[in-house]
């Protein structure tokens, strides 16, 4: 079944802050909501669907309280940093079935100014599977690093190939005035940075920043009255992957299941995609995601990312905002993937604009690749 342009992104905002000791996470989310609604030509009175993640407890109730809204649909699906992409997919369903008309997705975080060691604090919690993990000191970066190690073993992937991903996205960050790190880096810089969890170096890892954002999704009918041209959600796939009771190979990831669904719904192929936004928690995440999405064969990722293919001007410009390793990563980056893809499709990206961008793919990987992760693919297109 095709989505048939039933719902569109009509408002986006990425909060400019990367360091906000003077703000609360709720404030960042709310300021982002205000700006995204203004971008769409709407107000909070129009919102009748609300989606969020990264807020503990009764997340929608807490945030609806703060925003002072009473929506008809609420959803706090929490599958890691990609959650917001799942929210967008769920918003399409809610809108298509008439349960709501204007869906607001928000995110806010002060991870950096509150000194949250996002990637190295160790997993926490008391859920059933974690008793077999916590005593061993698994960290987020460690869980991805184990996948990278296996990838190198199976396919001969090198640290220099992984480093090229970080170098390419830093070049994009140079063009993004809001990016946290804008000094160009080289492959040698990445390889010379200290190892956090082998084989991943410091510069293979996403940064920690403050930040947030908001996205507004509405019906086709309502989209025609909005301030900006609609960016259609043409296809969506979501799932969660886990160790499969001990049988997983750690090279296949959620993207291998979500991409065929999203492409089929959109009725497009890989060659049609003009740019990608790939959740770059770590360099290895990007390489494995591109393989699992089907842009290249499993194991060919090292060669695929070489030669500037992912750079602006390359065959598949990716993470044009600079991504999570350079621009911002407040803990859950998924919402920024939709925001940058939308801006690219609207032609609003200035120096980092992909020429004549008509179709974009966003894929978020949340959680920990080597234990449990969520994955969501969205395919977005303009008129």
């Amino acid at each position, binding site marked *: 079944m095709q989505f048939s342009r039933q719902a569109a992104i009509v408002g986006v905002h990425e909060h400019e802050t990367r360091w906000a000791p003077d703000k609360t996470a709720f404030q960042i989310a709310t300021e982002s909501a205000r700006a995204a609604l203004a971008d769409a030509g709407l107000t909070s009175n129009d919102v009748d669907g609300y989606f969020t993640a990264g807020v503990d407890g009764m997340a929608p109730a807490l945030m609806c309280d703060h925003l002072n809204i009473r929506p008809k649909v609420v959803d706090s699906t929490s599958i890691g940093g990609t959650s917001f992409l799942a929210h967008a997919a769920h918003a399409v369903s809610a809108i298509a079935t008439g349960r709501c008309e204007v869906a607001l997705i928000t995110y806010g975080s002060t991870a950096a100014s509150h000194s949250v*060691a996002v990637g*190295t*604090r*160790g997993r926490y919690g*008391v859920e*059933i*599977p974690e*008793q*077999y*993990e*916590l*005593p*061993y*000191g*698994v*960290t987020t*970066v*460690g869980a991805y*690093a*184990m*996948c*990278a*190690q*296996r990838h190198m*073993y199976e396919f001969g992937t090198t640290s220099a190939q992984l480093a090229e991903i970080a170098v390419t996205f830093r070049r994009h960050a140079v063009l993004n005035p809001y990016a946290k790190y804008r000094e160009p880096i080289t492959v040698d810089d990445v390889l010379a940075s*200290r*190892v*956090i*969890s*082998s*084989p*991943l170096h410091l510069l293979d890892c996403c940064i920690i920043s403050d930040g947030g954002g908001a996205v507004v999704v509405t019906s086709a009918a309502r989209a025609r009255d909005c301030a900006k041209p609609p960016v259609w959600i043409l296809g969506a796939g979501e799932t969660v992957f886990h*160790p*499969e*009771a*001990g*049988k*997983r190979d*750690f090279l296949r990831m959620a993207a291998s299941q979500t991409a065929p669904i999203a492409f089929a719904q959109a009725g497009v192929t890989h060659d049609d995609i003009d740019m990608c936004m790939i959740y770059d928690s770590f360099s290895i995440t990007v390489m494995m995601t591109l393989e699992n999405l089907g842009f290249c064969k499993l194991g060919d990722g090292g060669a695929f990312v070489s030669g500037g293919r992912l750079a602006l001007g390359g065959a598949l410009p990716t993470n044009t905002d600079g991504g999570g390793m350079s621009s911002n990563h407040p803990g859950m980056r998924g919402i920024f993937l939709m925001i940058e893809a939308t801006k690219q499709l609207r032609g609003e990206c200035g120096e980092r604009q992909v020429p004549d961008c008509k179709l974009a793919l966003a894929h978020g990987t949340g959680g920990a690749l*080597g*234990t449990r992760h969520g994955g969501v693919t969205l395919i977005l297109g303009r008129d």
Partner: protein
Amino acid sequence: MAEWNKPLPQMDPESKPFWEACRRHELYLQQCQACGTHYYYPRQTCPACLSSDVRWVKLSGRGQVYTFTVTYQHAGAGFRDHLPFVLGYVELEGTNGVKMLTNIVDCEPQSVTIGMPVQVTFVDVNEEIAIPLFKPMSDE
């Protein structure tokens, strides 16, 4: 008892036989009697067919490293004072390829390789809990 200021497993009805076996320094896994599947982590319904007819089976404790990472940075108590350490998955002998998350110990972290033969070893952390770790296979 070893000094242990890392997180401890919280025994529950599904995990108790596993941890009790570890306390005896024995590594047990479950196998479904309906479909034959070996699996880990422990649970009282088979993750392949949801049968409750599952049985505990004793393993040799041997295996090989499937993948690993040498952890150089960890912000958590109990770990930050013991860097670097090796986190890895070990593929367990006699289980048709079941992998278990663990630490590889009693060797230089930088000497660990994928495919390396390892054997289980247990660290007693209190009266009830012994944690299964793996060390390089000895030559004997």
